[in-house]
């Protein structure tokens, strides 16, 4: 019994060390937080269209019964958004996917100019100038991309730009979502 008691500190240290090792491995990012919306219906927000562009706005109803949809949160002031834009454009075109957007805290003129420069692959764009829509969606920063099922259920959230390794991870999640549909 006494011996066991003296072994206790060692055992505890081993346990803590094991957790620490786990914490360092596998490219874990301690600042990344999981979405609270996974497996839940998309939030009930209606966002108006961006002024000066023909693309209509976005509401909850638009995400139900329309097949698998990507919801991309972007802003013209966000560098990584530029980086992922051509990739998302190409990806949705090649894979015949529906993509819609939330334009987060962005001035309409800036957003329009941005879309004109880089192209507009979005079927619908909700303008979220106040950032309220972003909060309903649990957005922590731009860019973020959600995968929403045909029933309007959030299947996956990808924070950060869909480029490089992120693109591969996103594609995997997308394939999984497709298979489940």
């Amino acid at each position, binding site marked *: 019994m006494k011996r066991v008691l003296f072994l206790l500190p060692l055992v505890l240290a081993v346990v803590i060390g094991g957790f620490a090792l786990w914490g360092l491995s596998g490219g874990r990012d301690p600042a990344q937080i999981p979405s609270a919306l996974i497996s839940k219906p998309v939030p009930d927000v209606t966002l108006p269209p961006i002024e000066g562009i023909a693309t209509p706005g976005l509401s909850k109803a638009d995400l139900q019964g329309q097949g698998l949809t990507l919801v991309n949160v972007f802003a013209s002031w966000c560098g990584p958004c530029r980086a992922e834009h*051509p*990739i998302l454009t*190409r990806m949705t075109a090649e894979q015949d996917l529906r993509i819609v957007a939330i334009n987060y805290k962005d001035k309409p003129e800036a957003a329009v100019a941005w879309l004109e420069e880089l192209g507009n692959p979005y079927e619908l764009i909700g303008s979220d100038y106040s950032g309220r829509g972003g909060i309903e969606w649990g957005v922590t920063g731009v860019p973020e991309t959600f995968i929403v099922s045909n029933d309007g259920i959030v299947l996956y959230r990808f924070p950060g730009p869909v*480029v490089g390794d992120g*693109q*591969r991870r996103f*594609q995997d999640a997308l394939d999984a979502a497709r298979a489940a549909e």
Partner: protein
Amino acid sequence: MIWAVAAIMALSVAVGLLWPLGSKASVRSGRVSKTMAIYEDQLSEVERDQERGLITASEAQAAQVEIKRRMLGAGEDEAPVAERSGKGGIIASALFVPVAAFALYTQIGAPNVPTVPFAERADEQRDAAQLQTLLGELKSRLESDPEGGETRGWTLLATTLMNQNRYSEAADAFSKLIDRDDATSATFSQYAEALILAENGTVTPLAGRIIAKSAELDPTNPAATYYSAIEQDQAGNSAQARALLLDRIAEEGQPAPWMPTFLTLANNIGTQLGEEPVTLPEFETPSGPKQDDIEAASEMSEEDREAFIRTMVDGLEERLQDEPENLDGWLQLARSLMVLGEQDRALAALKSAQPLVSNLPADDPRRLTVETGLAQLGFD
């Protein structure tokens, strides 16, 4: 110089390590006597506490008995110590430390790099400031030109800006050139490069269009192929991107300076795809690419930049004929020529500088630069 100081350091350390050999056996320093000293002190403290009335006589008595028992215990523990004196180990360690440290240092150190205090770099600061002014002047002159500015001028501005990592400004400068009749495939590929670097390596749709244009003008332009591959990779067509690079190498059929860069990228992409890394094919031409070429080609569109540097260097060399006392000028010339791989001319420049540094202190960075430079070029 550095080796002499290092040797002195190593020697002092060795002497320090040998020190215990010289020291005489001190007074008894065994455990028992040291422990006893502590217990004696505790005993006297109990006495003092009793005198002050902090503890009663019976408490003091009990405490003293306890301490005395400990003293007895400490006395019993004394094991006879067979004193030995291993001189060998000490000498061996005094040898080991300097030798092992030298061995380690040769792996991690950079003995030839001089110390360069900021205060002694006034010339460099001035040159840098001057370059900024010149660039500003050049830019405003080009912009105010009703004709749109000379192509040569814009190219100079853009390449210099690229050298200073000011990519988006460089991209702006290149953008002035692409609508002109004398725009070549290289103009487009350089513009694309600036755009891509300005976006931290991402190929934007605009850059993509420029690359396509560059490839259209000259399908053999390696830079166009290279950036197309990056574009393909970023679009998710990694296999295609890799093939593009490898095909281009195969097509060339003979060694070229850009090949190692291509190969590195192809292998990086290959690793992501789980492909085995490939090596350059054996070309039939007897002489493979020289190390210098490989290094020179590590950045794209080197040709143009080099041409620019060459004109600058030639101008400097000419000017120095008139001012042979300009030490910094000679040093700058020598440095530039070394970068360009013109070893003979660099050697000549250093020789011109040599008499100017002979009076400087031995650790002056300029003198060191000359001396190390001469040593590197095999001239002592």
